[in-house]
């Protein structure tokens, strides 16, 4: 046992060296037109060796360290309690959600403009995560390219408004439906794949969409993006200082109040709030309908589900399409909030963050997803000084999470994810 640990630790340390030494230990320095290879300074080299030692020690005492971590839940009074019965739990969840909703309604009137703006972003992430939760948490499909549907929603609105002058309220359903259509068309060939393969193909799809947006310069403006995306209106009332669209009126003039930049921010926040609530309610409803139970059944036991006449493709496709629909929804709101979008907003990292929210929240549970969305969006804002180390902290948090509480903060009653190829 100990000998085996030692061998493994030595191996890991050597791998660390092999990987990090060439990457960090050498620098390319350009001298005139030629490029010279130079060794890095001693500090870096010491760092590389120190890292190898740390890896070695960690692997050597892994059992002890992990054992210690495994005991951590004892510190958390919630962790070891038996799960509440389903009914009671649903009730508690409803009460909490209602309280949160009331708090959210008052938020824009007590918080600063920046805080309201950030809260709008949180709501967009909540929509995204609730949608991805259907795909990953409920249907058990590991989708790493979810951001593609978000992009489709955002660009639909941007392009429709640029070329056809279509307003937010019309673009909202169109963007969502277009994203759903993309989901349907992509899902059809892809959903035959299982587990890991599905993850890789969806990852590729996400990148393809982004690269397409980047390169179709004529249509999308390429890396320069699209600007001047209009704000939503309230029954034909605009929130700008001056009315841009003919036939519209202005909000502050109609109500005879002074113009304030906050009005627009608050209005957008409230729209996002309403849409997030709609998303949560619709998905809750779907979960109780036969289609929701079919997702669950297929995830739990594919052979049994098929033996009851369920079609794997149809069931998974429905989850994929519905997930894409809500990403499109969120994308439209995002485009309107930013007023400007470019492919840079839809990189793989976004998919990773949304997925992290779902995993962190406990796959399948809405309450958990909402809390996780708040945490993941707000914490980096609070810790701006550490922004360089954001990804490092993010990665470390995920690893710790997997060790300490793999089922997420607030897991759904039933959890299971399809990662291995089966049947």
């Amino acid at each position, binding site marked *: 046992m100990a000998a085996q640990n030692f061998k493994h630790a030595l191996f890991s340390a050597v791998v660390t060296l092999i990987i990090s030494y060439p990457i960090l230990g050498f620098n390319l320095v350009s001298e005139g037109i030629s490029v010279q290879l130079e060794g890095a300074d001693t500090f870096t080299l010491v760092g590389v060796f120190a890292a190898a030692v740390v890896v070695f020690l960690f692997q050597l005492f892994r059992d002890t360290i992990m054992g210690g971590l495994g005991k951590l839940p004892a510190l958390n009074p919630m962790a070891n309690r038996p799960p509440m019965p389903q009914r009671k739990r649903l009730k508690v969840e409803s009460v909490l959600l209602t309280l949160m909703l009331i708090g959210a309604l008052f938020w824009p009137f007590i918080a600063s403009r920046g805080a309201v703006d950030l809260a709008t972003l949180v709501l967009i992430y909540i929509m995204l995560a609730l949608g991805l939760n259907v795909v990953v948490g409920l249907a058990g499909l590991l989708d790493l390219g979810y951001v593609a549907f978000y992009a489709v929603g955002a660009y639909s609105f941007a392009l429709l408004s640029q070329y056809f002058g279509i307003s937010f309220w019309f673009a909202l359903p169109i963007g969502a439906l277009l994203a759903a259509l993309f989901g349907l068309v992509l899902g059809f060939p892809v959903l035959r794949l299982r587990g890991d393969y599905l993850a890789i193909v969806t990852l590729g799809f996400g990148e393809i969409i982004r690269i397409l947006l980047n390169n179709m310069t004529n249509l999308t403006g390429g890396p320069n993006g699209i600007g001047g995306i209009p704000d939503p209106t309230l029954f034909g009332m605009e929130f700008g200082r001056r009315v841009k669209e003919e036939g519209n009126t202005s909000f502050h003039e109609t109500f005879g109040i002074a113009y304030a930049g906050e009005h627009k921010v608050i209005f957008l926040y409230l729209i996002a709030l309403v849409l997030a609530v709609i998303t949560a309610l619709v998905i809750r409803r779907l979960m109780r309908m036969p289609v929701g139970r079919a997702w669950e059944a297929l995830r739990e036991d594919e052979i049994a589900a098929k033996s009851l*006449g369920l079609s794997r493709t149809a069931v998974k496709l429905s989850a994929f399409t519905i997930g894409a629909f809500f990403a499109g929804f969120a994308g439209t709101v995002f485009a309107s909030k930013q007023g400007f979008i470019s492919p840079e907003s839809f990189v793989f990292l976004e998919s990773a963050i949304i997925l992290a929210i779902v995993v962190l929240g406990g796959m399948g549970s809405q309450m958990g997803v909402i809390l996780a969305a708040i945490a993941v969006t707000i914490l980096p804002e609070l810790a701006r000084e550490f922004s360089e180390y954001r990804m490092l902290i993010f990665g470390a948090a995920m690893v710790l999470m997997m060790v300490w509480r793999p089922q997420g903060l607030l897991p759904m009653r*039933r959890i299971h994810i399809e990662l291995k190829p089966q049947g």
Partner: protein
Amino acid sequence: MLVLEDVHTHYGKIEALHGVSVQVNKGEIVSLIGANGAGKTTLLMTVCGNPRASSGRVILQGKDITNDLTSNIMRSGIAIVPEGRRVFSGLTVEENLHMGGFFNTKAEIRKSQEHVYELFPRLKEREHQRAGTMSGGEQQMLAIGRALMSRPNMIILDEPSLGLAPLVIKQIFEIIGQLREEGITVFLVEQNAHQALNLADRGYVLETGRIRLHDTGKNLLENPDVQNAYLGG
């Protein structure tokens, strides 16, 4: 009702069924017995189209279903109780039953559910319990109940007695007999040859992917070869 004609089935390049012909008539109980690995499960799954037969024909109620999709086959009046029960362990008993009647109307579901609870009062007691927390026997009852929810004309059972206590096995076989009274055709696969043949109108013996014997249940029980190989001498 169900006819298999010279069916060959492959797993990749390996042939698991080497030309099997079986017939199940309306209203009968037909038992298929065979040792572990003989290909019994493969035969049943071939009927369901998962995997498909690589040659030969499968005919269900006069219709050739050899190349149909599993989802279509399973919606045409046939239901299977798969090997190892395969109930949805995270769902409650009631939710499991509702999955069984997925393509039926609400009224039909309510009726079938009542009927299943009549057959298995035990399931009614456990209505809101998660299936995974029940005993093996109860799970088997649930698997049978779930299959009955779609109101099939024919039910296929893959080793329903596997790993159950003798008393529970007796109960399960009684229910299977009762299903015949209700006019449901039964195709039963068992390693528990004695009880399966006792109950059956006719029986088949499957050995390494081939049908070795075919006779009435009674004759097979008295057949010395069968007695030696499957009834413990």
